[in-house]
Structures are given as structure tokens and as C-alpha cells.
């Protein structure tokens, strides 16, 4: 039966609810279970003299969202083995971070997940603030939440565009997504000066204050965005082709998702209620009313739907933040731009980036540059269970499963 799922109906009304969405608690033991028992794998039909076929999909395959290779072994159309191969876009980010000053690492973090530069900035400065004890003022915290949620809108809209393009919707939804993204990118450009590589956040604050009229423009963009989301959902959520292609495809079990360390919308689509905005409540997220959408089936459709719903919640957070933002300074008076030399120590800071838990791990030895600079990229960790989701599916499904993982190779390879 092809139909949109009823459990998401209650979310569409746009009313802020209490609690954290539909329940997650049919208390499963979160033990380590590999789902790749390969029950689904068909045996080769020897009567036809068929043979398994090894195909290297990528690194130049258009469906791989960058330079990524899937070495798949196919039995006819069915995937029986899949090996993700990455590293083509490796550019020594972590080592550069160890040789550069703390300040000079910020523009490099822009280039990790180049669609969500603002959240990358935030994750890094959040980590260094944890290390040095700098405290951004109220206004800076609000601006950070606003730009992070706008980034979430950009990321999820584009991801859905790419995902349905992988399903064969050639361009139309993606072009709509990019048209809407343009409004947000314009906001970011007038704020930070760049359209993608913002380099906006600083330890204990921000680089510059909002230009005049920015809040009003942002309010307009956000108001239009919920209208656009209605349009986008009318275009896609009920579409029978999308439903047929995505429901029941690429199922990721709750236990496997937890034991593999999957985070972000991938994990929540599998029904685990884990969002660092609620768990850590970093920044000032405890001041806003929002819910965490959860899926039940953990398939591609749930992952699609979770992202749509997260965008609606992001719009709610933006409405609240844009209404509440106070006047005031944007930098900690103790913060200085150059010559940061934290005391020896180590720190792990993490935030909920649109793709999942983005963490930075720093070891400092009192010198002007970190001794160790390590990133926990959500895209890479979420990619590790690709084979478990793809086994027994057809090649065309493997493509959309990869699309639903939401990877950006800049972050996977670093």
C-alpha cells in the first residue's frame, strides 16, 4: 500500500506541542547487533551461468555526491557486498590545524561541510570556549542560534533536493531548493561577507554585529520559508513515486544505529530520541520551545520526513529567536583576537550540526597552536553502516540510500 504515513500527520499542523514528539520507548536493549546477517542476499542462479559482477561506482559517478567510491558486488541488480572507499578529498585538515594558530583554524572549518559552514564554525569555537572559559554574551548566543538554524534549513532543503534527484526527479525540486537557499545565502553574505565560507564566529563572540535591517530581512525569509515548505511537501511528500521508492528501502535498525555511533537525523529516523540541542542544551537552546521529530521504520522515507519536520521545528526556533534577540555587545570582553595560548589540557566539544554530532577534540600544550586537532565528522560515522543498509537492495536503491545518509565529502575526508 503506497500512502504517506499517518504518524507524521500530527506534525503538519504547525502547532508547538509539548514533550518530544511521538514516543521512542519500546525499550529495546541497545546491544551491539550487526544486521548484516545477509538474509536478504539471493544466491546466484547457477543455471543461467550467472556470475557476480564487481562494479566501482565512483569516484566520478554522478550519484555519489562528490568524490566517493562504492565498490559494489552485484548479483544481477542486487547488491551482495558494498565497500565504501573514501579519502579522495583528503586535504590534511587536522594536521593543518595543528600547525596553525587557533584563530587560523576557523576558516578551515568552513571547508569541512561546506554547505553548513556556520555550524562548523560554531562547533570549533564552542570547543575552544570550553577550553578557555570564554563566555559569549547574550546577543552573540542568539545570533549563533539564528545562523545555525538557518544553516539547518539550507542543509535539509538541499539534501532533499539531491535525494529526490537521485530518485530521478531531474532538477525540479533541487532548483526550488536552491532558489530558497539563495535567500538565506544572501542573508549570510550581508552578515559575514561571503556566500559559503563565512568565517564568522570568534572565540567568545562573533566577528561583526548584524548589519542594519538584517533582523527584518531574516524575519521575512523565515516567514516565506514555512510557505515554501508547504509547497515543497505538496510537491513531494504525497508523491507516489517517492513513496514507492523510499518506503521500506534501506532500513536501519535502532540497535545497529546506536552501536555504530550514528547521529543526527539518521539516528532519529530510526526512532532514537537523541538530539544534542536537547541533551547538551549547549548555547541557549533550553530557552526555545521545539520538538524532536522521530521516525519508526528507519527507512529512506523516514529520513526524508524527519528532515522536513526538523525544518518546520527550525522555523519555530527561528521565530522565537528573532523575536527575542536582545541588544548588547557581541564579544566577551576577555576575548582577544590574536595570540590565544590556552593552558595545557584537553577538551571535546560537540554540537548538533544538521548532519549529526559534530565534535572537535583538542589537546593543548600551552603553545599558540593545538598539539592535537581531531574532528568527529557526522558524515563519516554515518557512512560506516552504508553496507548494512544496502545489502539485498538493488543498485538504484543503493544510490538513494547513500543520498539519504546526507554526506558531504569535504567532511568525510577532511
Amino acid at each position, binding site marked *: 500500500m503506497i500512502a504517506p504515513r499517518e504518524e507524521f500527520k500530527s506534525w503538519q499542523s504547525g502547532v508547538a506541542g509539548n514533550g518530544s514528539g511521538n514516543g521512542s520507548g519500546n525499550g529495546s536493549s541497545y546491544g551491539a547487533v550487526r544486521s548484516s546477517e545477509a538474509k536478504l542476499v539471493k544466491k546466484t542462479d547457477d543455471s543461467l551461468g550467472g556470475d557476480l559482477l564487481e562494479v566501482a561506482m565512483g569516484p566520478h559517478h554522478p550519484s555519489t555526491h562528490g568524490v566517493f567510491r562504492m565498490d559494489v558486488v552485484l548479483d544481477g541488480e542486487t547488491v551482495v557486498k558494498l565497500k565504501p572507499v573514501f579519502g579522495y578529498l583528503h586535504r590534511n585538515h587536522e594536521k593543518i590545524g595543528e600547525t596553525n594558530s587557533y584563530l*587560523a583554524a576557523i576558516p578551515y572549518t568552513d571547508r569541512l561541510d561546506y554547505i553548513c559552514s556556520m555550524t562548523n564554525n560554531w562547533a570549533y569555537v564552542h570547543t575552544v570556549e570550553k577550553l578557555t572559559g570564554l563566555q559569549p554574551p547574550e546577543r552573540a548566543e542568539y545570533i549563533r542560534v539564528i545562523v545555525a538554524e538557518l544553516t539547518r534549513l539550507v542543509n535539509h532543503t538541499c539534501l532533499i533536493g539531491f535525494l529526490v534527484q537521485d530518485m530521478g526527479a531531474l532538477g*525540479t525540486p533541487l532548483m*526550488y531548493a536552491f532558489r530558497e537557499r539563495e535567500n538565506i545565502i544572501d542573508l549570510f553574505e550581508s552578515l559575514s561577507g561571503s556566500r559559503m565560507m563565512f568565517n564568522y564566529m570568534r572565540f567568545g563572540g562573533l566577528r561583526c554585529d548584524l548589519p542594519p535591517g538584517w533582523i527584518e530581512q531574516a524575519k521575512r525569509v523565515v516567514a516565506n520559508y514555512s510557505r515554501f515548505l508547504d509547497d515543497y511537501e*505538496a*510537491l513531494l*511528500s504525497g508523491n507516489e513515486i517517492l513513496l514507492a521508492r523510499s518506503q521500506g528501502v534501506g532500513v536501519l535498525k535502532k540497535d545497529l544505529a546506536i552501536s555504530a555511533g550514528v547521529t543526527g537525523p539518521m539516528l532519529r529516523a530510526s526512532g532514537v530520541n537523541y538530539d544534542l540541542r536537547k541533551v547538551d542544551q549547549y548555547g541557549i537552546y533550553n530557552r526555545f520551545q521545539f520538538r524532536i521529530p522521530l521516525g519508526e521504520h528507519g527507512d529512506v522515507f523516514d529520513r526524508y520526513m524527519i528532515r522536513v519536520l526538523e525544518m518546520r521545528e527550525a522555523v519555530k526556533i527561528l521565530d522565537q529567536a528573532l523575536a527575542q534577540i536582545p541588544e548588547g555587545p557581541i564579544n566577551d570582553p576577555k576575548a582577544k*583576537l*590574536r595570540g590565544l595560548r590556552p593552558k595545557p589540557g584537553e577538551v571535546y566539544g560537540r554540537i548538533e550540526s544538521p548532519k549529526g554530532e559534530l565534535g572537535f577534540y583538542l589537546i593543548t600544550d600551552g603553545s599558540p597552536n593545538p598539539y592535537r586537532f581531531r574532528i568527529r565528522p557526522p558524515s563519516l560515522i554515518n557512512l560506516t553502516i552504508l553496507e548494512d543498509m544496502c545489502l539485498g537492495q538493488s543498485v538504484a536503491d543503493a544510490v538513494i540510500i547513500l543520498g539519504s545518509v546526507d554526506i558531504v565529502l569535504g567532511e568525510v575526508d577532511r
Partner: protein
Amino acid sequence: MLGSGLIKGLAQTAKNFFGSYHDPARMVTVEYPEQKRVVPEASRTIPFLVYDGEDPELGLRCTACKICEVECPTQCIYIVKNTSKKPDHVGKMQFHPATFDIDISVCMGCGICAEVCPFDSIKMDQVFELSTADRFESLLLHKQQLAKPNSYFGKIHPTEAGEIDIRREQDKRKAEAKAKADAEAKARAAAEVQNAAANSAAPPPSPQTVTPA
């Protein structure tokens, strides 16, 4: 009914298609070489050097302090200090760069150099048509290509440039006032010394005695 979702989606597409002829919200593209979008004031691409007055060599604000060279994340700036000094806007003698090169094939336009510069010298440009036929020579910008007048800076970043101009003008006035006060104090001190010397010696000759009869 199977297919109703498809039809609903097609209605959306139709709405967007016809909207793209009359709805400004749906007309988003700019026909680039003929039309150009107005970039916001904060927009930045590559760095340039500001100079005051007419002469790029004489009015260059850069003092070759090399802070930008040290802080640049990609290390694309190369500076050689000149041995001679020249006066800056407040009349203080400062070094200036003999060589100031920026390799814009390496520069990532992060703007940290402009942020850390204590002399308001290096600022971010808004030019974006930077393609050249040559990979190496043309993308290594020298001091001559990088130096741009303050009036250009005022045109692309009016708010920031206005603030800097006011501050520099104040600095200059303060320096002038200080120089004047210093000169007066010196003159006074000299006069006092002279007076003291005169008082201790014979009284000064009256004008009548000096004028020839």
C-alpha cells in the same frame, strides 16, 4: 486514489512555472555578463592595500609589521621590509614594505589579515572577475597591483571607511595638537631659560639705546 499525489505535485510545478513569469519572488536569476547583482557592503574576495593621497608609494598605510603575514592561515602573504622610513599620517617615522606580494591562487579570502591589521592598511576587496590566462605570474599580485586609493575603499565599504577616516583624522589632529603644545612648551621653556639667564645677568638694553640716533 493512486496518482493524486503526483497530480498535486504537478499543480505545484505549474504554479512555479507560471509564477516565474510574473512573481518577483520566483524570478531569481540574473543574466550575468549584462546584469550584475549589487554585492552587499560586507562582501569580500581578496585583500588589497589602502593608500592615502595621490601617490601609492608615499601614501601606503602599510608599515611592514608582518602581522598579517604571520596570521594568514594559508601563508599567502610575503613581505620584505624597507630599510628606510617615511612619516605616517601622524608624522611618526615608520617602515614601509619594499615587497608586498599576495598569491591569490592560494588566498582563500577569509579576511583575517584585514581583521588583525592595526594600521587599517590591508582591507578586503570586492572584485570577483579575477580569471587570468596565466596560472602563476598573473595570480601573484605585487604591491603595485594591490595598492588602491582610500577613495576606492570608501566606495566599497562606506561605513567602515567612514569610521576609519574619522579616527585617523582625530589621531592626526591630536598629533598636531600635541606637536603644537610640545613646540609651545619648548618655546616657553626656552623663553624661561632665556629670561632666567637675562635676569641673572644685566637688565636687557632698552629699545632706545639700540636704535641708532
